[in-house]
């Protein structure tokens, strides 16, 4: 990266991670590794039915079983809950939100908890759970979104009288021209399957009661701060009586961005028993008890003039909520609602989302959350429109790219910066399309496996988010974040962040930012996070927000600290603060290079407080809360190459080239890692992963044997490049990067499959493009 080579200092350098030392040697602090003396193991008894009433429950034998401490049904714990499990995003005033408590006596999805067992060990608890006899009355269930909206479909919540949760619309009518009057109108309908996040660490919870009515909750959570607010409310605790700790957390991808039944159960039961209570999810349990992503049907339309100028986009989305609304379930489709025009200048904009209850595990945030769903239908339909127009697919994209920034888009938001043409140009420098087409033609002539290339030019909005906008779209909290920088007497720096990493390397990257600004050795900077007793407020980590919000808060806190230090130095050297320059950790008087003060000496002086300006507080510490003025707008261009065996439908990804523009890069090694992982989850959605239910709401892909999480053997190495359009909305110029790969990759791969088969007349294949689906598509095109 030429842009990074020019810089000095830590920002832009591939600084190796300080997180690795413990993780590489087996000293991670994952929740399941904790076992305080006296801990009771908790096991949840779950409904095997997608919809059933508990007629009776016999817990007698379980209570008598060896090692059992207590057993509770839903009814017995009802008074422990001061509020239902929270949904923080009522997207419309009329939205229907059925109450959901940690245990239920009417199960609404397979896996809904009906009882809980506590025992001296997990083995005892599991044995006892087997002895609980639940007499269920099965009720009619519905699993698919389209079926759920049909007249006469079983109702997930009969008291609501409908499976429709909400309808949300955003329309602009910029030109007054009707979409159907356009020269060319292309409408396609896409099903995007349910995805099961599968963080490799299953969830785990440990609730430890204190001595004064206080509780500590250790949880595999992305959101310790949000969890504290809502768990305290759910249990009727003062927030000050609840400490939440997110220790090392083994991946999240959105699935640990929630307030879960087991977190509240462990707290309530630890309070009742006055003993620590621990629950560790099993993987197969994770498949039903942890949120899923996606599961939506989208009808998407693009309209254009004959010369390929796109005039309209329209999306009609039916999105599965699952059986209940978890923390941000109804808002997930909306996170894509403003980008259904992608990186293209499309004046007329119309989207409509219908949230639909089904008897399935609730959906919620999964990597990309709303934006992969948008990008998939846009990029698929761009190819279809190009075919309809008889136009080159990339030429159609180039013609319609937004080219000037800042750009106010059809949905009403403003994109701060970008250069979509530059990303595509760079992609085509790396990817020799002419050579590929020649090889593709040769393969077609020779028979045997076919080659195809697919493109995805994308943008996305992340960095959640400006608080006023969140308020305007009815999200319950703000989108700011906070940072404290505390200079210790020796010049060491303590950084306290409101973000909560679970693989994103904040300890390393945050130290880079602060060490550069204060001009100190990176090893002098420690980064503290993920514990509400250390970092009492924060908005945590999701939506590619940590760097463009929490990282920018660091910048502002450091600036405050430097400003105070400058006042101290000015006082001590008897010069004007304006005459001081600060660089590389040293203040110098302009024009008098011999008059200097190191930042470390100022930190000591501020601590000793012997010689501070009149009225100045001792110490050198500052907190900044940063509320971003805009979302973060990454973009880029990706190309996928697949090899398809037309005899079997077997499809393999053989090459992947990604050019991403994520603004200024703090640590290229970490950014590349985020892109690798993100791309992989998008590829995997395109080729391998599908959470499938039968008509009765039984999860058919209920473990790692039946749901294909790819291994190294299914994937190639990736080729990454960057372009760099710094964000003008923050002083670091940074944008989010955690989700870009997932947002861009799936349509590139499916477009590649269709490109490979285009000469056979294949026009569509549903994700995931399994050998069977691809083979059937080929056979259907033949007939």
């Amino acid at each position: 990266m030429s842009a990074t080579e020019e810089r000095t200092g830590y920002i832009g350098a591939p600084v190796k991670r300080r997180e690795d030392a413990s993780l590489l040697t087996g000293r991670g602090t994952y929740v399941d590794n904790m076992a305080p003396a006296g801990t009771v193991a908790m096991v949840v008894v779950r409904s095997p039915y997608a919809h059933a009433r508990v007629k009776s429950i016999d817990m007698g034998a379980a209570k008598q079983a060896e090692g059992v401490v207590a057993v509770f049904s839903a009814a017995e714990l009802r008074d422990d809950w001061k509020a239902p499990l929270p949904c923080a995003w009522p997207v419309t005033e009329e939205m229907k939100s059925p109450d959901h408590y940690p245990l239920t006596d009417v199960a609404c999805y397979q896996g809904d908890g009906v009882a809980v067992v506590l025992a001296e060990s997990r083995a005892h608890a599991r044995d006892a759970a087997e002895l609980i006899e639940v007499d269920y009355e099965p009720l009619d269930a519905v699993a698919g979104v389209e079926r759920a909206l049909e007249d006469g479909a079983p109702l997930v919540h009969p008291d609501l009288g409908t499976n429709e949760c909400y309808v949300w619309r955003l329309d602009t009518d910029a030109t007054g021209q009707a979409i159907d009057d356009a020269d060319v109108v292309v409408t396609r309908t896409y099903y995007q399957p349910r995805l099961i996040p599968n963080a490799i660490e299953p969830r785990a919870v440990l609730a430890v009661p204190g001595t004064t009515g206080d509780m500590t909750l250790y949880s595999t959570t992305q959101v310790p701060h949000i969890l504290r607010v809502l768990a305290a409310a759910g249990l009727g605790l003062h927030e000050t009586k609840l400490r939440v700790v997110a220790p090392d957390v083994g991946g999240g991808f959105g699935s640990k961005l929630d307030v879960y039944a087991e977190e509240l159960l462990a707290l309530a039961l630890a309070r009742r028993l006055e003993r620590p209570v621990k629950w560790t999810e099993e993987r197969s349990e994770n498949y039903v008890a942890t949120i899923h992503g996606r599961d939506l049907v989208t009808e998407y339309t693009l309209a254009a003039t004959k010369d390929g100028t796109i005039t309209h986009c329209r999306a009609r989305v039916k999105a599965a909520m699952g059986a209940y609304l978890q923390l941000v379930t109804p808002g997930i489709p909306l996170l894509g609602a403003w980008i259904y025009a992608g990186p293209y200048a499309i004046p007329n904009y119309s989207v409509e989302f219908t949230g639909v209850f089904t008897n399935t595990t609730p959906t919620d945030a999964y990597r990309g959350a709303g934006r992969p769903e948008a990008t998939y239908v846009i990029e698929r339909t761009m190819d279809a429109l190009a075919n309809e127009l008889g136009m080159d697919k990339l030429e159609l994209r180039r013609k319609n790219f937004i080219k000037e920034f800042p750009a106010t888009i059809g949905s009403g938001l403003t994109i701060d910066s970008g250069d979509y043409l530059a990303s595509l140009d760079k992609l085509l420098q790396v990817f020799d399309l002419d050579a590929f087409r020649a090889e593709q033609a040769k393969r077609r002539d020779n028979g045997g496996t076919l080659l195809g290339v697919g493109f995805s030019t994308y943008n996305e909005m992340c960095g959640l988010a400006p608080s006023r906008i969140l308020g305007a779209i009815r999200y319950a909290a703000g989108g700011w974040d906070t940072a404290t920088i505390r200079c210790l007497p020796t010049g060491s720096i303590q950084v306290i962040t409101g973000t909560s990493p679970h693989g994103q390397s904040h300890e390393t990257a945050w130290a880079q930012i602060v060490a550069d600004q204060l001009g100190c050795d990176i090893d002098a900077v420690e980064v503290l996070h993920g514990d509400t007793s250390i970092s009492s407020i924060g908005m945590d980590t999701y939506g590619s927000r940590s760097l463009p919000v929490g990282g920018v808060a660091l910048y502002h806190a450091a600036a405050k600290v430097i400003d105070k230090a400058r006042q101290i130095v000015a006082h001590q050297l008897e010069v004007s603060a304006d005459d001081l320059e600060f660089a590389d950790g040293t203040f110098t008087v302009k024009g008098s290079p011999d008059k200097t003060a190191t930042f470390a000496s100022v930190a000591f002086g501020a601590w000793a407080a012997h010689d501070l300006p009149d009225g100045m507080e001792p110490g050198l510490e500052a907190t900044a809360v940063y509320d971003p003025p805009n979302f973060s707008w990454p973009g880029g261009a990706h190309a996928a190459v697949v090899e398809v065996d037309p005899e079997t439908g077997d499809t393999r990804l053989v090459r992947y080239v990604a050019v991403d523009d994520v603004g200024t890069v703090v640590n290229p090694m970490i950014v590349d890692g985020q892109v690798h992982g993100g791309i992989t989850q998008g590829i995997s959605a395109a080729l391998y992963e599908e959470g499938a239910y039968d008509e009765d709401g039984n999860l058919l892909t209920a473990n790692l044997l039946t749901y294909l999480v790819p291994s190294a053997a299914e994937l190639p190495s990736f080729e990454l490049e960057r372009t760099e359009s710094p964000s003008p909305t923050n002083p670091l110029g940074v944008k989010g990067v955690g989700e870009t790969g997932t947002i861009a990759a799936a349509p590139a791969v499916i477009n590649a499959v269709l490109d490979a088969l285009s000469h056979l007349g294949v026009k569509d294949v549903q994700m995931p493009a399994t050998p069977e689906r691809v083979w059937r598509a080929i056979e259907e095109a033949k007939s």
Partner: protein
Amino acid sequence: MRHVGLTVNGMRHELELEPRELLVQVLRDRLRLTGTNVGCDTSSCGACTVLVDGESAKSCTLLGVQVDGSEITTIEGLATNGALHPVQQAFHDRHALQCGFCTPGMVLAAVSLIEHGEATSEAAIRVGLEGNLCRCTGYHNIVAAVQDAAAAMGRAS
């Protein structure tokens, strides 16, 4: 209860085990060696991979009583005298871990692959690690790290 004697990371342990206890439970719960993680219940993810008499094995697929008399190496026993094993070092240098949960198993699977002389190409490494799932890295940097480590250990070809 059955008496089992085993050596873990060079230390001898005499244990009374229930026949149903899995090796991973013995390591984590009895010996408090929590570096070996549990990521699934179908022997699919490989997070619990350890070395049993030098061979990589998913410790959820073995009963404690099956490894009576064995020598076991877990992630805690891989570094020597404070120096990272070449595979650990390569994982650090190549950013081959993010959340770190799959890492102990991935590292030990890689050690076994390299020591068996099977880490001779990118394709061989990819196939050799197919029993270990990672959800963060997309494997790109893991494969690169294993190639580096194999070279450092003189086993790249």
